[in-house]
C-alpha cells in the first residue's frame, strides 16, 4: 500500500513536472495547483506558474530597411545626406531628443534636463550619467565640446559650420554639465545642438584627423542601440546589437541598410520579405494596403510642394539688402511682380485635381507657410486659394492683361508692370526625373494656358535647376521643402537678407519690410514661449498668403510600408525607430 502511494506520488510528480514544462499555461495551472500540496519540490514550479510573468520578448531577428541611396560618410559632422544619417544615427549620442509624435524637443537623449538664464542667453545642460561608448569610455561633456569645436576648426571641411552661428562659447563645467552661451536670443537655436557627438578620445586633440579618420568609414565605437559591423558600398550596411546600450539592448540581432535604387524593385523586395521597410510611392500604396503581410504608416511630413514665383527680373538678379542692411529696390519681374498675375495663378489651379491625380491623394491643401503639424504657430483660420477660373480671368482682365488679338494668349494692354503688347509668357521649370513634379508641371501648364497664359514648361536636371534657382535666373519653379522641423522659423525663405543671388534661399526675391520685422521679432521673443511667438507667425502667414511669393500646392504626406515581422513597432511622424530596443520578433 505504501509502495502504491509512493508510486502514485512519483507519477503525480513526474506528470506535474512534465506539464509544467509545457508551453500551454491554462491547463497547466490547474494541474500544478493540485500537486503543490504533495511536495515541496513542486512549490518552485508553483511560483513560476501561479504568478504569471509577462511573456519575455523573443530575442533575435534582423530588420532590413531599403533605401534608394547609400550613405556617403559615417561622420555626423561631415555628412550632409539623409542616407548617411540613417546609418550613423545608430552610433552617435546627441544632446537633445525629439518626441516621435509631436516633434517637440525632449530630454530623452544625453541631456536629462537643462536650465536657461533669465535673459535667455545661457543654457546649462545636465547630462545622463553612466552612458558608455562601446569601448568602455564614458560619454561626457568633452565629447560634445570636441564635436562642436571640430566643426569650427579650419581643418574640418563641413557644411555644418552654420550650427555654430550665434554661439559665443561652449564650456564644460564638469564631465556631466555643459554651458552654451548665445550672443542673442534665437528661439530656434536649440535645433543647432542636435548633431551626433564624436568619441573625442579616438581623435587627435587638434582635429587634424577628423577629415581622414578611418572612423569616417568604419565607426567602430558606438553609444547607441547598435554597433557598426560592415559597410559594403552601394550594397548594404550592417549593424549589430549593442549589449551595453544605456536604454537597454535591443532584442533584435541587428539592422541592415540595403541599397535598392529602383522604387519598383524596392516594392518587390518588400513583398518577398527581402526588405522590411521602404518609403512607399503614391502609386504603390494599393499594393501595400492589399498585402496581408505588410503595414502602412501614413503621416503628415514636415514639408510642402510649391510653385515659386520670382518677383525680380531674372535678367538682373540683385541682392535684397546692401552692406548696411538697407533694402535694395529690385528690378521687378516684368510679369510676376504684378500681384494680380500671382493672384490669377493662385486661383487658376485646380488643387483638388492636382492632389488627387498628380499626388494620388497623398497631400492636403495648405494656405500658407506654417504647416498644421506645428500646431501652436499654424493659423487654421486662413483659407487656401479657391479654384475659380472665372475669377482668375476677371483679375487678369482688370489688371490689363487681355487677349486683344484672339490668339489665346493675353498681352499687356495697360498692365502695371510689363511693356504694352508683351505676352503673358512665363517659363516654368522643375527637376527632371521627379515624375510627380513633371506631371504637376504639365497640369499647371495646361490649366494656366486655359486662361490665357503661355507657359513654357521644361524639366531640367537637378544640379542645373539648383544653379538657376540660387542664381535667381528663373521665372517660376516647381519644387518643395522637406525636413522643415518643428520650429516655424523659415526666415531664410522670406527675409530680404537671404535674397542673395548665387547663395540665398529667398531666391524668389520676396521683399517686404514688415515681414523682415515680424520674422526677427518672432525668434527673439524673451522666454520664447509659444503663446508669445504665435501671434507673430499668424501675421506672417497672413501676409505671405496675400502676397503670394509661392503658390502653395500641397502639404507633404509620407508613407512607409513595413513588415509585421516584429511586435512593438509604434511609428511616429518624426521617428519610425524611436523604440526599436523594445521590438521583439512576432510570435
Amino acid at each position: 500500500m505504501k509502495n502504491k502511494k509512493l508510486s502514485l506520488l512519483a507519477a503525480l510528480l513526474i506528470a506535474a513536472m512534465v506539464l509544467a514544462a509545457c508551453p500551454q499555461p491554462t491547463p497547466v495551472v490547474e494541474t500544478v495547483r493540485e500537486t503543490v500540496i504533495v511536495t515541496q519540490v513542486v512549490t518552485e514550479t508553483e511560483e513560476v506558474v501561479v504568478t504569471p510573468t509577462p511573456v519575455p520578448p523573443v530575442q533575435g531577428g534582423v530588420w532590413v530597411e531599403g533605401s534608394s541611396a547609400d550613405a556617403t560618410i559615417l561622420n555626423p559632422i561631415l555628412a550632409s545626406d539623409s542616407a548617411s544619417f540613417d546609418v550613423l544615427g545608430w552610433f552617435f549620442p546627441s544632446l537633445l531628443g525629439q518626441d516621435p509624435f509631436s516633434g517637440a524637443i525632449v530630454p530623452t537623449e544625453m541631456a536629462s534636463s537643462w536650465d536657461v538664464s533669465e535673459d535667455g542667453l545661457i543654457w546649462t545642460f545636465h547630462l545622463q550619467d553612466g552612458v558608455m561608448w562601446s569601448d568602455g569610455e564614458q560619454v561626457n561633456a568633452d565629447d560634445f565640446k570636441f564635436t562642436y569645436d571640430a566643426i569650427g576648426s579650419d581643418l574640418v571641411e563641413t557644411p555644418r559650420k552654420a550650427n555654430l552661428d550665434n554661439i559665443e562659447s561652449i564650456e564644460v563645467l564638469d564631465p556631466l554639465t555643459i554651458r552654451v552661451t548665445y550672443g542673442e536670443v534665437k528661439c530656434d537655436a536649440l535645433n543647432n545642438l542636435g548633431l551626433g557627438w564624436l568619441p573625442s578620445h579616438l581623435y587627435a586633440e587638434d582635429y587634424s584627423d577628423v577629415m581622414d579618420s578611418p572612423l569616417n568609414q568604419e565607426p567602430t565605437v558606438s553609444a547607441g542601440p547598435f554597433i557598426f559591423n560592415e559597410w559594403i558600398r552601394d550594397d548594404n550596411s550592417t549593424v549589430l546589437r549593442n549589449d551595453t546600450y544605456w536604454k537597454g539592448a535591443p532584442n533584435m540581432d541587428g539592422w541592415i541598410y540595403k541599397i535598392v535604387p529602383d522604387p519598383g524593385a524596392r516594392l518587390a523586395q518588400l513583398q518577398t520579405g527581402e526588405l522590411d521597410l521602404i518609403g512607399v510611392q503614391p502609386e504603390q500604396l494599393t499594393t501595400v494596403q492589399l498585402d496581408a503581410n505588410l503595414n502602412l504608416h501614413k503621416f503628415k511630413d514636415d514639408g510642402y510642394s510649391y510653385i515659386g514665383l520670382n518677383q525680380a527680373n531674372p535678367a538682373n538678379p540683385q541682392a535684397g539688402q546692401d552692406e548696411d542692411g538697407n533694402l535694395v529696390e529690385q528690378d521687378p519681374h516684368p510679369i510676376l511682380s504684378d500681384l494680380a498675375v500671382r493672384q490669377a495663378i493662385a486661383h487658376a489651379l485646380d488643387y483638388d485635381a492636382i492632389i488627387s491625380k498628380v499626388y494620388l491623394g497623398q497631400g492636403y491643401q495648405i494656405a500658407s507657410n506654417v504647416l498644421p503639424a506645428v500646431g501652436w504657430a499654424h493659423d487654421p483660420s486662413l483659407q487656401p486659394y479657391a479654384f475659380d477660373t472665372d475669377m482668375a480671368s476677371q483679375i487678369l482682365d482688370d489688371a490689363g492683361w487681355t487677349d486683344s488679338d484672339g490668339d489665346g494668349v493675353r498681352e499687356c494692354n495697360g498692365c502695371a508692370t510689363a511693356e504694352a503688347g508683351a505676352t503673358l509668357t512665363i517659363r516654368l521649370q522643375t527637376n527632371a526625373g521627379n515624375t510627380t513634379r513633371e506631371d504637376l508641371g504639365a497640369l499647371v501648364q495646361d490649366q494656366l494656358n486655359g486662361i490665357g497664359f503661355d507657359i513654357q514648361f521644361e524639366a531640367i536636371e537637378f544640379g542645373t535647376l539648383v544653379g538657376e534657382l540660387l542664381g535667381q535666373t528663373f521665372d517660376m519653379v516647381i519644387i518643395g521643402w522637406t525636413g522643415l522641423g518643428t520650429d516655424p522659423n523659415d526666415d531664410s525663405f522670406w527675409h530680404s537678407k537671404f535674397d542673395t543671388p548665387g547663395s540665398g534661399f529667398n531666391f524668389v526675391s520676396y521683399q517686404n519690410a514688415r515681414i523682415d520685422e515680424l520674422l526677427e521679432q518672432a525668434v527673439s521673443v524673451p522666454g520664447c514661449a509659444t503663446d508669445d511667438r504665435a501671434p507673430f507667425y499668424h501675421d506672417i502667414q497672413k501676409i505671405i498668403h496675400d502676397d503670394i511669393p509661392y503658390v502653395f500646392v500641397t502639404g507633404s504626406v509620407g508613407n512607409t510600408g513595413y513588415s509585421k515581422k516584429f511586435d512593438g513597432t509604434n511609428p511616429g511622424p518624426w521617428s519610425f525607430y524611436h523604440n526599436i530596443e523594445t521590438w521583439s520578433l512576432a510570435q
Partner: protein
Amino acid sequence: MARYVIRRLLQAIPTLLGVSIISFVLVYNSPGDPILIRTFDPNITQETREILRRQLGLDQHWALQYIGWMTGVTLRSGDAVEEFTRNEIRCNYLAVLNATFCNSGGGILRGNLGTSIATNQAVWERLVERMWATFQLGVAALLVSLLVGVPLGVLSAVRQGSPFDASVRVLAVVGNALPSFWFGLMLIFLFGVVLGWLPTGGMRTVSLTNEFDPVDRLRHLILPTIVLALGGIAGISRFMRTETLEVIRTDYIRMAKAKGVAARRVWFVHALRNALIPLMTILGPAILGVLTGAVIVETIFSWPGMGRMTFSAAVQRDYPTVLGAVMFFSILTILGNLLSDILYGVVDPRVRLS
C-alpha cells in the same frame, strides 16, 4: 609583335591626354555646382559654402584645377601655407612670386585619381570596390551573349528563310527594342515576386555576416545577366548570321560540300571558324560596351557596380570620381581595342600586325 604593342601603347599617351583635357573641360563647364548640390539647405550659410569651395580648390580657374588634378601640385596666391597644409598636403610659400605651392603627392600622372568630393574616399579605391561587381556581371553577360548568340546566328544562316530564321530575327528585333529597365522589372516581378524562384536584386542575400555563398551569388546573377545579355544576343546573332552567309557562299565551302563532307561538319567546322574571325573585331568594343552599358541594369537590380557609381557621381557633380571613371574607362577602351587587334592577328594568319 612586341614593337607593335609598344608603339600602340605609346600612341595611347596623346590620346589619353586629349581625353583628359576634353573630359575635364566638359565636366567642369557643365551646369550645376558640386557645392550648391551638397549644400542645398537653407541652414547652410554662404560663408560655409565659400570655405568648402576654397578648401576643395573649386574657386580656382579651371586650368589651374586641371594642372592640380594632373600633377597634384596646386598654386595659391599669397601666403596660404597655414590654411592648406594638412596631413597629406605640404605647402610652401614662395615670397618671390607671392604664391603658395601645395603638393598633395597625388595627381593622375603619379597614378592618383584624386579624392571623391561626395565621400572623401580615394577615387581609385571607389573604382576598385565596384570593379569586381561590374566585372562579374559583364563577363557573365558576355559569355551568355556569345554562347547563345553565335549558335543562333549560325543556325539562322543555315536555315535561311525558315521559320526558325524568322523567329531569331524577331528575337533580335525585340531584344534590341526592349527597354532594359522594363524587361528587368518584369523579370523581377515574374521570377521574384510571383514565382519566388529567384532573388529580386543585389549581389547576395544580405545578412549580418554576409558570408560568401557561391550558389547564392549565382542565383543573384541570373536575372541581371539575362537582361544585360539580351542586347548582345540580338546583335551577335545578326552579326553571325551575316558573316556565316558570306562564308558559305565562298568557293572552299562549295568545294567541301562537293567533296561530300558532312553538312554539319561544313557548317560548324569550316564555316564557323572563318565566320568567327570578324567577331574578334567587335569583341573588344563589346566587352567595354557591356562593362559601361550596365548602368541601368545595375540600378534596376541594385548591383553595386562601377556604372551606377559613375552615374550617381555625375548627378552629384562629384568631379574627381567622374573624371577618374572616365580615365579608367578610356584606358580600358584603348586596351580593349589593342587586344581585339592582337587577337585578330592571332586567329587569322592572313592578318599581320605592323
